[in-house]
Structures are given as C-alpha cells and as structure tokens.
C-alpha cells in the first residue's frame, strides 16, 4: 500500500499546459479557464489492434526498452573502413547469392530480382548466357538465395550480391561491428534494376577489376571516413540520402580524392574512376545504406522494444523486423510506387517496391527527411509544404529524433528516428519511402522513381507478436 516515490508536483499548483485527447468538451472547459491546451487529433487505431496496443503499452519493459534501443542506435558512429570482395568479407562462395528484402524462393521472385540474379550468375561464370541462368535457379541445386540482411549487408533495389562483387565495409569503432554494401553502378540499365545485358556485365567486371581494388586501396590509405557525419552534412545540403545523394557523393570523393590520386594506378584509370563516381549522383547511397544498417543493428534484440530495425523489399514482399521480436520478418505484398516515369514507361511497366534501401527511412532519413530535400517531393507532383508536412508527420510514428541529423528548414529538428510499431497502428500513418522503380520485366532496368509505403497489414502483425511475447513474459 505504501508508495516509494516522492510526489511529483503540488496539487495546488496550476498546470502549465494540458494535453487533451478525446471529447473536445473537456479540452474546451480547461481552455476556458485560461490554461493552454494542446488537442490531439485522435482517430481509432487500425482495425483489430486495440487489445494488442493496450497489452504492449502496459508492458513494463516497453518504455525503457525503446529508450535503450534508440540510444544504442544513435550512439553508433558508422566509419567507412574498407572496400573488398564479398567472398572475402562475407565468406560468400560460388553459387551463393544475396538479395534485397525478406527471404524468397526463386519461384516467387519478381522480374527485376530474376534479372539481377541471372546477370550475377553470368558475371560469376556459372552460365555463359544470362538467359540460361533461369533454369539454374529454378533447379536450386547449385545455387542458394539469402537475404543481404541475414549477412549484415544491405543492397539497393534487387540488392543482388555475388562472391566477386566488391563491397563497402562500415564499422562501429566502439563495438567493432560491421555492415556491408555493394558498390553503386549508376542509373539506367544496371543490374540492381534487373538489367543483365552485355553492358551491365561489362560494367560489373570493370568495377571488380578496377574500381573496387582502387577504392580499397584509397580508403585504406585515407583512413576511416565518417559516414555518419557526412549524412548529417548531406541533410544541410539538399540530400535526403535515398533518392538524392549528390552532396554525399561529392563529400566522399573529397575525402578520398588525394588517396585515389596517389594509388598505384595509371592516371587514366584514376580519371575513369573519378568520372564514374562523379557521374553517378547515387554513388554514396551504397555507403548511406550500410551506415544506417550499422546503427539500426545496434537496436536489435531489446526485449519489449517496439522499434522497427529493418524495412526491406524483395520486389514481391515487403518485410519489417522489430527489435523486440528478434529475426522474425513480418511481410505483406510490396506496393507499387506513385511517381514519375522515364521515357515511355508507365505504371503498367513498374515492378512493385524493391530493395533494402528503405533502411534509410528506417533510420530517419530518405522519405522521413523529405523536408531536407524538397526537390524529391516533385517525384509525386507534390509541393514543398508536402515535404515539410511529411517530415513532421513521420515524427508522429517515431520514438525519438536524431540530433546529429538536423533538418535546417524544420528549425534544425532532428530527423524522426525509431519507427514505433505501436504508433503506426495507433495513427494509421505509414512510413513514407522514397524509391526508384524497376521495370517488372527482367532486363528492363529503371522505369521511374516515386513514393511508396509499406503494406499496412505488416504493422498489426508485428504488434500481435509483440503482444504475444508480452503476455508470455507476464
């Protein structure tokens, strides 16, 4: 019967301000007595979630678990420490392929993922002609598929990684943990968009033989590059680090340029590498993504935490993983993006959402930091106020904000960070993702870019598992 804590405030003191949710008459009565009232625009939660929401909200672990998960994430400093082949870094062997998104078997793969796998099989010499690879994957005997996320890696779009591909290595110096991502190929007809023509394979070979080794040498010589800090600066320079990586690419080049010039390559080869990286506004995306994953992985496996630690799509399924539910994926159908199309392409040509790049939104940038990159909002014919509203709206579903990643136009408010499964179910606000669109037919490549959200159903599914675990603990 006794209370151990001290009383917090004096009942005879007038409240400084009151938050009111529900019937407006109560708020009005308080406002009439000259006390400032902040009214909540409340709507009923997603269908069927009320009981699970209450169970999870009352979980004695939840509040501190979420605080711990977010603080672990925010404490991570992601340093680019190396560039090396996947075979070396991940122990990836011939016939082993990584892909974006949650696990999937060949029979259910979408066009762009098929195209990328077929191209990668040819690149690895498993087949002469990429077209022959389909039978190889269908048989499943000499090849295996595994999500990048299961190997501490992420991959944009199809996200296909094969043993000979070179990868960025990001490391958290405090813990020594690492994450990985392949090198960005540029735009247009590229493997990650499902293209596998001769020019695609030619570029991959050049990246393997020249770009990768050169970058490996330059990064080793330059010393670790602080990707977390570059991400913070990018937000001050008009990038949101998912669909716009222009400033980030230039800053990376600035940091490693002296070492590139000094590398043991001909000036012609170095110039080629400069032209390639400088000509690809998305080159830094493949550093931003593993930097985000490195931070988010620190938030994994905190019992009771409702924080989303990964959002990823394989072109068929959209999956999320949540801190409090271990490695379990909650999946639903990947959605079609709403956006603008290249050339003659239209909505009928687009594949559903694909790629691990939604790790950027999971970390609070990309679509969440739209306000930092107003140009991106035009992908859906939107406006600058839309961008500001989106970034503010995302704060309604996150646990915290990231003060290392401030958004200038929002008065330097930190990027909305730590998507809370409960808040999504309560508000019905879905995470906003900026994305490229791949053609749905294998081999086509990019057809556009736009905005997309996860399928709503995966959040109640994750919530139900969180509630189940809460009840089991009680």
């Amino acid at each position, binding site marked *: *019967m*006794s*209370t*151990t*804590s*001290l*009383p*917090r*405030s*004096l*009942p*005879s*003191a*007038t*409240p*400084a*301000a*009151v*938050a*009111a*949710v*529900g*019937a407006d008459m*109560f708020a009005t*009565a*308080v406002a009439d*007595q000259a006390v*400032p009232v*902040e*009214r*909540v*625009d*409340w*709507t*009923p*939660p997603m269908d069927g979630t*009320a009981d699970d*929401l*209450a169970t999870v*909200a*009352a979980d*004695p672990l939840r*509040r501190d678990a979420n605080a711990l998960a977010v603080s672990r994430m925010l404490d991570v400093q992601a340093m680019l420490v190396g560039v090396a082949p996947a075979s070396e870094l991940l122990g990836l062997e011939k016939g082993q392929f990584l892909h974006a998104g949650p696990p999937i078997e060949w029979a259910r793969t979408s066009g762009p993922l098929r195209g990328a796998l077929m191209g990668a099989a040819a690149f690895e010499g498993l087949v002469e002609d990429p077209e022959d690879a389909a039978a190889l994957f269908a048989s499943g005997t000499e090849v295996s598929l595994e999500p990048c996320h299961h190997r501490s890696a992420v991959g944009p779009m199809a996200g296909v990684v094969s043993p000979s591909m070179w990868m960025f290595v990001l490391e958290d110096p405090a813990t020594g943990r690492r994450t990985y991502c392949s090198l960005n190929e540029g735009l247009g007809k590229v493997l990650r968009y499902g293209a596998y023509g001769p020019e695609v394979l030619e570029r991959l070979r050049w990246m393997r033989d020249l770009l990768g080794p050169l970058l490996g040498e330059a990064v080793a010589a330059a010393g670790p590059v602080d990707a977390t800090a570059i991400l913070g600066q990018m937000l001050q320079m008009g990038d949101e680090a998912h669909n716009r990586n222009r400033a980030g690419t230039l800053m990376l080049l600035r940091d490693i340029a002296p070492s590139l010039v000094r590398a043991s390559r001909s000036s012609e080869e170095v110039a080629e590498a400069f032209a390639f990286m400088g*000509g690809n506004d998305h080159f830094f995306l493949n550093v931003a993504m593993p930097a985000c994953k490195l931070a988010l992985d620190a938030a994994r496996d905190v019992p009771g935490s409702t924080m989303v630690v990964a959002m990823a799509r394989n072109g068929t399924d959209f999956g999320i993983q949540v801190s409090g539910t271990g490695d379990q994926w909650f999946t639903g159908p990947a959605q079609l993006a709403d956006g*603008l*199309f290249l*050339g003659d392409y239209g909505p009928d040509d687009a594949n559903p959402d694909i790629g691990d790049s939604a790790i950027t939104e999971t970390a609070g940038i990309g679509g969440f930091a739209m306000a930092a990159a107003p*140009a991106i909002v*035009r*992908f859906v*014919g939107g*406006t600058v*106020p839309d961008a500001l*509203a989106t970034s*503010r*709206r995302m*704060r*309604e579903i996150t646990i915290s904000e990231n003060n290392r990643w401030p958004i200038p136009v929002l008065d330097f408010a930190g990027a909305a960070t730590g998507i809370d499964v409960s808040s999504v179910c309560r*508000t019905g*606000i879905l995470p906003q993702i900026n994305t490229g669109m791949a053609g749905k037919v294998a081999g086509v490549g990019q057809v556009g870019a736009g905005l997309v959200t996860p399928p709503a159903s995966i959040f109640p599914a994750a919530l139900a598992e969180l509630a189940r675990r809460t009840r089991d603990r009680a």
Partner: protein
Amino acid sequence: MTVEHVEIRPGAYADSVALLQVSRDVAATPGVTAAQVAMATELNVEVLQGMGFTLPAASPNDMVVAVRLDDESALPAALAAVDAALAAARKGSSGGEVTAPPRTTGSALRRAGGDLALVSVPGASALVEAMDALDAGVDVMIFSDNVPVEQELAMKRIARDRGLLVMGPDCGTAVVGGVGLGFANTVSPGSVGIVAASGTGCQQILALLDAAGVGVAAALGVGGRDLSAAIGGISTTTALDRLDADPSVEQVVVVSKPPAAEVAAAVEKYAAGLTTPVRFALLGAGQPDLTTQVEALLGDLGVAVPAWPTWGTPAVRSASGGTALRGLFVGGTLCDEAMLLAAETLGPIRSNIPLSPELALDSSLLEPGHLMIDFGDDGLTRGRAHPMIDPTLRLEHLAKVAADPETAVIVMDVVLGHGAEDDPAAGLAPAIAAARAIRDVPVVVACVGTSADPQGLARQAEALAAAGAEVHLSNAAATRRAIALATGGAR
C-alpha cells in the same frame, strides 16, 4: 501522319525531377503521343533514342525538348505546354504550410510541454493514450467509460512505480491548482484537499465547503473503482501523498462510493501515518451522509456549520396522494447517498444501480414502489451524452413519473460546474412546472454548485424554485425532505 519535333535549348536548365513532371504534363497535351523534356545527359540521350527520337549533338548542359505528335498542327499547343510546364516547375507552389495537429497524447505533450493529460477516448483506447502521459512523466486524468478493470490496475501500478497519479477512470472531477477538470465546480483557494473516488460526491463536498466559506487547495478524482478490491486504492494512496506533501493543504477528506472494506481499512491505516489529518467520507449502510461528514470536517477546521441554503417554499404533499418516492439523478454518488438514506426509513428501493442485486430495476425504469434512477450510469449513456450534458432522457422520464398516481414525491439532483450544460434550469424548470401541472406532486431538488460556477448557483436554484420545486444545496437534506413527504401520507 506522325510528326516528330526535337529541339535543343542550350543553357536552359531545370533539375531532373522537375523535368520528369514537365514531360508528364506535356505528354498529357492533346495531340501529343510522346514527350520527353530532359537535360541531354548520356542517360537521357539513351532514353530519348530508346523512344525513337533522333537527336542532334548536344551537351549535358543543354535541354532537349522532344515531342511526337499526331500531326504538325499540334506543335504550337505542344510547345506552349512545354513552356507552361517549365514555368510552373520554376514557380513552385503557392500553397501555405500548415502544421498538422498531434495524433497521439505523446506527441501533444512533446509539442506543448504539458504537465497533465486529459483522456476521454473510448475505453478500449484509454490505456494507450494514458501510457503516453506516464511515459512522458506527467499525471493523467481519464474520463473514458468502460475501461477494463485489469487495464486500470495495470496503468495505476505503473504510475505508482513512477510516482505519478492516474485520476479516473469513470470519475470526472478534479480541481488542480484552481483549474477544474471535467465536471468540476469553481471554488476559492483554501486549505482543504479532497481525494474523490466519486465524481458527484466530490462536487457535493465542493459545494458545501464553498457555502461554508471554506476554500479548497485541490480535489483529486481517483476513479470510482479505486477503493475496490481489484484496484486496492492505488491512486487514493498516491493522491494522499501528494496532498500531504503540499504545504497549502491542512486537512484532507477522502470521499468514495461504498468501498471494499479491507481496502478502506488499509487506506485509513496508511492515512493515519501521514502528517496531514485525513477524514474519510465513505458512503455505506449505516455510515454518515456526505453533508454530515462535511459538517464534521468544518468542526475539524473550527468553522461554524452554516444553515445549508434552500430556495423556494416548502413542498407539500399532493392532494392526489401516492406513496412512492421517485428519485431521478444524474449523479451516481448522489443517487447512492439518497438510496442509503431512504432505505433506512422506507425499506427496499429499486434502482438501475441497486444497493443489492435483487433490487435491480428493469429497462422500463418504472416499476411499483420506491425507485431511484441514476441516468448517468453506463447502461443509460450508451449512444448518448451524460445527462449532465444532455438532459433529454431524464426530462422525458420526469413526465412519466409525475403522471404515475403512485408517485408521492420526486427527488432530483442538478449538478453545476465546468463540463455541465450551460443552463440546466432552462430545460428542467419548465419540465418541473409541466409535471406539477399534471399532478401537484412535490418536487425536491438538490442543486449542487457554487456561486462562482458558470451557470450561477442562485440563478439556477431560483429558477427551479420559481417552477415550484423545493431546492436544497445538500443532497442529504433534499432526500430527507422527500422521505418526509413520502411518508407523511403513509403514516
């Protein structure tokens, strides 16, 4: 015949995203079958060639306008569309930016830095919103009905562990720092602290203290179930601690609907260890009524007990007889108190909130014998507002009860203060007059309020008196008068 038009605009620039939008707008122009406006980068040149356009030499700093037309006549419209779309892309939006309101209690507290949350969402969602407040380290008051008791227990336990207070659920009254929350009366600052597991019970005490010239430091509503065995007085204990620690509080009174005996005993024991004296006004059979408790409290404070106000002329029995007492209440505790008092004299009283289960009243709300109805009970507020806000149902029933020849006397309550309807007498006074026109049945009203209440105590009481009611500030006094009027003919 299809016509192609390709032009290079050297030095013109727009970003690629804007140009995608421009291309889409131009392609939608009548007569245009395909359009691409783009900077002549290597990638875009490839795209244009893929679309079948033949391009002259151009640098990446040149803009290419390429359109395919049904025939030559469509060209001027197409080029006008290009210029319009490029102009629109440069101009941007004229739309103003509006900050959307917060969607959760947590967000609202983050934005406004509040130190209290008021929750009145449907009961199934109340805990979730309340937890936002507890997570933010602030107290919460819950007005929601139908909060599951196990959820009430869960959040009160968490609040206790964090030194926070959950007020409510289902007890819509508090005064914090002079601010009335929910259904609360306007009172002067003073030295009395109230812990209330009863909303209208709290309001009766506020009204009587105000009439005695005694001010109130704070009233903390802790929820109608707080002193039940299930909840165990968690919020009552926290509220006692808060009041005990507040130097402006010299005397505490705890008011509750009939509590669980063991919980009441434990809370009384806890209160005995506090510095500030605590008086318990717990309703129950054989226990003093609230007015008697307030009189004792005034004794504690050394304040003389005033003559409790009444308005109107004393009611008299109807010439048409009748033997039954009929109570029509909006306040659950006031209904409880009236039943406890009347049962001592009149015996069993049927009710929708009966003192014992066998006395339950059916849904007609009109059976032979003594009846007391709480129109504020959950069973009668489904799909409609509380009768303190919407009096329709009670006014309808008043006419039925008055017309019943068995009715000897009608006793009612009127509760004033924040949250209650703006002018209850405006509806009730004519209804009383109309009822008395059917039969000259006496109507006794307990009008619970203070002179500073928005509706004005005297104004309301006088209007009811003018309609023929005998009006008391004390619910116990009103009930005693009604009992006397009911038994006057039976004896």
